[in-house]
């Protein structure tokens, strides 16, 4: 093995990795069971393949592809928020109905009080923050298990929602801005513009990092690998943009439908922000620490209670955005908004993506990938034309299959390694 040995600033001997050694290392890690989100992505591909074969004409159409995003927005947002709560080993059963309540706050302000969207949306988000604060204080300060607190909240919010909707009315919204959030599309120019911006931004960050670490003589990823990553992202994003900027209307004569759904950049921005917070800030580090070993975190002087409260705030805040988006999509809110299987789906999304229910392990992007798995299942099932009973059964089976890909991949890996 010929490795170039460089001396870094600290005076420590280190090995400068080459592209080959990097790939070897990655493969070693994969064989060693450190798979990251690979299995979930694999599961996603398998699912896409299955549905693609079964319903090739529709599942793989641009229209359906665009629909996927708008359909999954609520679950993805709640799941992203839940990742924070799960990272601490807590649970928030009330996130679904919290999103319903926040959606209702917005709808009531818009429709019943005639307020503009720039009042109604912040109000809904504020409602989310207040809800989270309440839950967090009960859990952190009184020490009631979060399962019980949020079970109580699950019931309570259901009641609040019913009461807000005067016992069960639907409230329609007509505000075009709000409706466009989860129904509208970006123009073709904006679509391409944002895609290019994203790729350029990513490239900038990656290259800058290599440069600055290299300047301090710390080990960097080989430039080949970095370029490969940037290229990969570019190909993916541009392909998706190309598909989404095609005409996909059912009847193009009546109505043109093209461009990236507005909800895509919304999801992307949320994902980037929260990934940044978790991965690159002190706060995020402390969340992992408290989730990994609360006692160690406390001994390190981390304000455990405040962290605990904050994750509930983040979760409910994200749920409020999920609520806003689902109300936007349905253009109405009803007492079941945020009910049904939304919560279980959201937790499932986070867990499928690789977040542990015991805390300390998980990433925001996992929630997005897991949410995509759930959305694809739901979406594909909708195309298959099963009866209700069959649909439930197949959804369960497909979910299980997607999760087994993950489990088996990790198992195989750990059999050869640790």
């Amino acid at each position: 093995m010929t490795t170039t040995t460089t001396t870094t600033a600290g005076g420590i001997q280190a090995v400068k990795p080459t592209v080959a050694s990097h790939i070897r290392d990655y493969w070693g890690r994969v064989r060693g069971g450190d798979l990251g989100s690979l299995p979930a992505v694999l599961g996603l591909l398998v699912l896409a393949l299955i549905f693609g074969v079964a319903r090739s004409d529709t599942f793989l159409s641009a229209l359906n592809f665009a629909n996927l995003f708008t359909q999954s927005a609520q679950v993805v947002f709640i799941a992203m928020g839940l990742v924070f709560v799960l990272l601490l080993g807590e649970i928030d059963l009330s996130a679904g109905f919290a999103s319903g309540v926040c959606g209702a706050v917005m709808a009531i302000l818009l429709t019943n009080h005639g307020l503009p969207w720039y009042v109604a949306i912040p109000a809904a988000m504020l409602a989310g923050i207040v809800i989270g604060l309440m839950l967090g204080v009960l859990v952190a300060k009184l020490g009631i298990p979060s399962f019980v607190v949020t079970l109580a909240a699950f019931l309570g919010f259901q009641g609040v929602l019913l009461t807000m909707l005067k016992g069960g009315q639907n409230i329609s919204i007509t505000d075009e801005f709000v409706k466009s959030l989860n129904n509208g599309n970006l123009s073709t120019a904006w679509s391409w513009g944002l895609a290019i911006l994203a790729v350029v931004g990513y490239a900038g960050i990656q290259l800058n990092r290599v440069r600055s670490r290299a300047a301090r003589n710390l080990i960097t990823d080989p430039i080949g690998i970095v370029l490969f990553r940037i290229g990969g992202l570019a190909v993916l994003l541009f392909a998706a943009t190309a598909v989404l900027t095609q005409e996909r209307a059912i009847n193009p004569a009546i109505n043109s439908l093209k461009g990236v759904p507005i909800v895509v950049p919304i999801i992307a921005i949320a994902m980037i922000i929260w990934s940044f917070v978790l991965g690159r800030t002190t706060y995020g580090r402390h969340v992992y620490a408290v989730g990994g070993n609360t006692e160690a975190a406390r001994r390190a002087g981390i304000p455990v209670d405040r962290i605990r409260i904050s994750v509930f705030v983040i979760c409910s805040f994200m749920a409020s955005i999920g609520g806003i988006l689902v109300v936007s999509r349905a253009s109405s809110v009803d007492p079941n908004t945020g009910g049904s299987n939304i919560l279980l789906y959201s937790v499932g999304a986070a867990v499928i993506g690789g977040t542990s229910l015991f805390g300390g392990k998980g990433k925001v992007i996992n929630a997005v990938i897991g949410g995509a798995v759930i959305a694809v299942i739901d979406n594909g099932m909708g195309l298959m034309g099963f009866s209700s009973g069959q649909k439930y059964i197949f959804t369960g089976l497909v979910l299980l299959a997607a999760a087994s890909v993950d489990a088996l991949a990790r198992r195989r890996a750990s059999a050869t390694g640790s």
Partner: protein
Amino acid sequence: ACGSESGSDGDSGSSGSSVGKVGVILPDTKSSARWATADLKYLTDAFKAAGVEADIQNAQGDKTQFQTIADGMISSGVKVLVIVNLDSGTGKAVLDKAKAAGIATIDYDRLTLNGGADYYVSFDNVEVGKLQGQGLIDCLTEKKVTKPVVAYLNGSPTDNNATLFKEGYDSILKPKFDSGEYTKGPDQDVPDWDNVQGGTLFEQMLTTNKDIKGVLAANDGLGNAAIQVLKKNKLNGQVPVTGQDATVQGLQNVLVGDQCMTVYKAIKQEADAASELAIALAKGQAPTSATGSITDPESKKDVKSVLLKPQSITKANVKDVVTDGFVTKEELCTADFAKACTDAGIS
């Protein structure tokens, strides 16, 4: 040693020993907004007016709770029990218990099969479905659509009423399918009557089958969910959608032409009929209003009934609902719909 003394904490001071208490159990808040908004109000008002103490509760779609509430009412000594069953099985269990305790029973809105309730007050749910089917046909005819593909967006698979509605519209539409005049499109149940899921389901239907030309949605909420998807594709108004319950949202959709029709059940009539019966029974009188009768298809026994007719509402007669006081003009004719309201003659 217990239960014989009836509660005296009601707001009616007139509850003498001869006037008993009435218990009403409503089914849920999800299958329709009516239970929490309309029935509760009308029944409360009627009982209050008659000075009869009433305990009205909602089982929130939970069968176990339904029974728990019934147990509670029976043990609190009600004299009349009015139930809207969640399913015939639990309904029957409750009715049996009530009868064993010597309580008069009324099936409200839904007949408990083989339950043997003393009275039955209802809109005919199959009839509701028939109106929906007919309404859709009328709209399609009016739009001169030939060989339309019709999609079904049914109610919750676990709700027996959804089955009855479907039985109704199927009976109207099936001949059209059979004759090849219409084509049957996708047919899906919406779990829990969940509008969001309904929207996704319909979106998937439309993706699969791009020439859906008519949507039979089981209620206004689901209708609205379908309309939102159609709107995205600028197909709203061209593809007729049905509904039920005459909700504000549904009526507004009807007014602007996005929704073909809704079914209005004059719930006040139904509530009044039921409360009249209950009040008479509570006062120990023999009720006279139950003139009709219906045969329980399972036990083959006759049940004394008050049967009411649901009404089909299109743009032309939306104002009937307002006139009836079921919705107010203020609720309905908000800024966005003011013009449509005027056009429809609501002022």
